[in-house]
């Protein structure tokens, strides 16, 4: 069920929706994991499929632009393969009071692909919105993937094997942000590096980036070095064009070789080292201070009345 949509609608998705769906999924997953006792038999891997969560997306449709602002959760009944209708209507009323412009635009779910059973829910929503949108979030973490794992499906009537059927077709979308959303997303993105490493601050992330770049450079130089050694020993036939390339590369380095550069470089290096030494000294003296405070609290024979604060 895939070809791109031909309805000509442009979709704008707000980050809040993505965060809501992701949060919903994470909560349900961790709750279900904590409830079922860990009785995994095969090596600690959970074999049960990740739970699917469902909800509604709301927003504004003006002309050909559909802007999805917000979302809320819904309960799913697997027995009837439908969503909780009464709750949906109650929520719709509440949202109407606060955001009079927002309509129910569709629904969302998690999973890697849209399934056949989803069409049932989709049709059920058609009486609220004649062409609802299906937002699908794929919760599997794939580091190689650079795009967002969010797809928006529309339903179209296609004739397949002579039978007109509703199928899901993909639509493209753009991310639209309000200022508040931009600030918060920016904040989170800067604090946590994208590869999920343990560096907690911006400086550490920056330095980790530089470190990995230098590591890559080092490994590449080592490869070249081994290659040249092998060529010298005679294991590999001499290739003059490669040698020419290596020689031209080497002639480009070092970029600066003067005495003054050495002086300035070493001075700056020393300055940085001295600053970090000073920082460590300050750190040490502050921990020493705390230790001494604790020690005197614990072992002091007389307590000064009223002179001590509770904030060390």
């Amino acid at each position, binding site marked *: 069920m895939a070809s791109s949509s031909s309805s000509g609608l442009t979709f704008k998705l707000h980050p809040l929706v993505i965060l809501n769906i992701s949060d919903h999924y994470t909560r349900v997953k961790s709750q279900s994991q904590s409830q079922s006792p860990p009785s995994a038999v095969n090596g600690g891997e959970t074999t049960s499929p990740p739970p699917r969560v469902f909800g509604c997306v709301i927003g504004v449709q003006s002309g050909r632009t559909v802007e999805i602002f917000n979302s809320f959760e819904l309960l799913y009944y697997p027995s009837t393969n439908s969503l909780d209708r009464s709750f949906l209507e109650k929520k719709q009323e509440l949202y109407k009071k606060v955001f009079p412009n927002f309509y129910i635009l569709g629904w969302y779910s998690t999973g890697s692909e849209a399934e056949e059973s989803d069409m049932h829910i989709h049709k059920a929503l058609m009486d609220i919105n004649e062409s609802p949108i299906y937002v699908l979030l794929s919760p599997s973490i794939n580091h190689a993937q650079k795009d967002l794992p969010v797809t928006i499906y529309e339903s179209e009537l296609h004739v397949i094997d002579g039978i007109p059927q509703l199928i899901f077709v993909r639509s493209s979308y753009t991310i639209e942000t309000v200022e508040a959303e931009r600030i918060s997303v920016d904040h989170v993105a800067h604090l946590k590096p994208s590869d999920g490493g343990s560096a907690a601050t911006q400086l550490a992330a920056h330095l980790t980036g530089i470190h990995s770049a230098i590591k890559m450079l080092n490994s590449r130089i080592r490869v070249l070095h081994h290659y040249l050694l092998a060529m010298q020993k005679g294991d590999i036939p001499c290739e003059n064009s490669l040698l020419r390339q290596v020689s031209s590369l080497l002639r480009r380095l070092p970029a600066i070789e003067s005495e003054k550069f050495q*002086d300035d470089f*070493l*001075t700056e*290096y*020393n*300055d940085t*080292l*001295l600053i*970090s*030494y000073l920082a*460590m*000294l300050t*750190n*040490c003296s502050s*921990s*020493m201070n*705390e*230790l001494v405070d*604790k*020690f005197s*609290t*614990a*072992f002091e024979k007389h*307590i000064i009345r009223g002179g*001590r*604060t*509770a904030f060390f």
Partner: protein
Amino acid sequence: MNLNMNSVESVVAQIQGLSSSADDVTHLHGLLKQSEELLQSESTRLAPFLAELDPSKHSLGYLYILEACTAAPNAKEQANELVLSIARFLNDCAAEQIRLAPDKFVSVCKRFKDQVMLLETPMRGVAPLLTAIRKLQPSSEHLTSLHPDFLLLCLLAKCYKTGLCVLEHDIFEVDQPRDFFLYCYYGGMICIGQKRYRKALELLHNVVTAPMSTINAIAVEAYKKYILISLIHLGQFSTSLPKYASSVAQRNLKNFSQPYIELVTCYVNGKISELEAYVQANREIFEIDRNLGLVKQVVSSMYKRNIQRLTQTYLTLSLQDIANTVQLNSPKEAEMHVLQMIQDGEIYATINQKDGMVRFLEDPEQYKTCEMIERIDSSIQRIMALSKKLTAMDEHMSCDSQYLAKAGRERQRFDFDDFDTVPQKFNI
């Protein structure tokens, strides 16, 4: 478990049988503790049994028998063989086994030291005691009772460098205060012998400011040396001890070292002749304290101090003027002194021999060499290790029951959640 151990032979057999694995050794330890009286009673007969045991495999048993053996006072003729056998044991024994009976080990080592001193050959005891310390210490941060004995032997044998290698490791855990006092005092003396005045000052400072409930002789002697080293190394001395020194020390130490305090006042005045006169007058006092050598060094450091004072006033000075200001006899002596100071790194200057002028310079360190990088790097590493130690101690202290009791009590009064309009203070 109460075997019939009524003969030394059976004890020896048990030792030989039960020395292979760790569980056996603990079992053996229990048995040995029970048969201690038996061993003590038979102490005269025990020497031949030692030959049946191997010190490296049966260390614990060997230790017990050796300890019982040496308990009896013996004559000087036997001292030599005793020294040899104990030295062999100390070199060969297994560290894990002897750590089960540390006090016995310490008493054997102390007797060893006594024998060595009896023979007046302290040099023979240095190396075995060094290995003994390394085997007894759970880690290099622990102070054992053997440290002061070892340092004493080093001092008597004049093996200062060996003593220094033990002093390099900082001590963080101390069992007995007396060990600590002696260790720091002897350590200070060894550092003085090696002319490492900064470390000596640090060690003597530790003795003087260590917590003590009553004044003790070690602290008094250490205080006298502390004054002298402070004059030699720093050129000044303040008679007030820091706040963390015990009140006992703060009140009483000064009374016991009155002549030294007066020496300080003489020194600060800056007149060599007065200083020398004072030293001459109180020569016997300094001799009794065995500090005369140090006092003479104080006098010679006076010249250095004066020359250094000159660097702060003049940019160039002639050798003749230096000799006159510092009260040296001739420009030649002044030149020798200045040259020595330049070589030691205490002063930055150049001597122009043609016209006899000395030009004083600034510190030429530009902080742009690779050696400086390595120095700073090693300092950073040291301080990182220290920081880890401090955080560990901090956590340890936070879990301490006494601290939690007192901190909990204090917090209740100022808890924000309990604040109501009437401050609690007025409710009492």
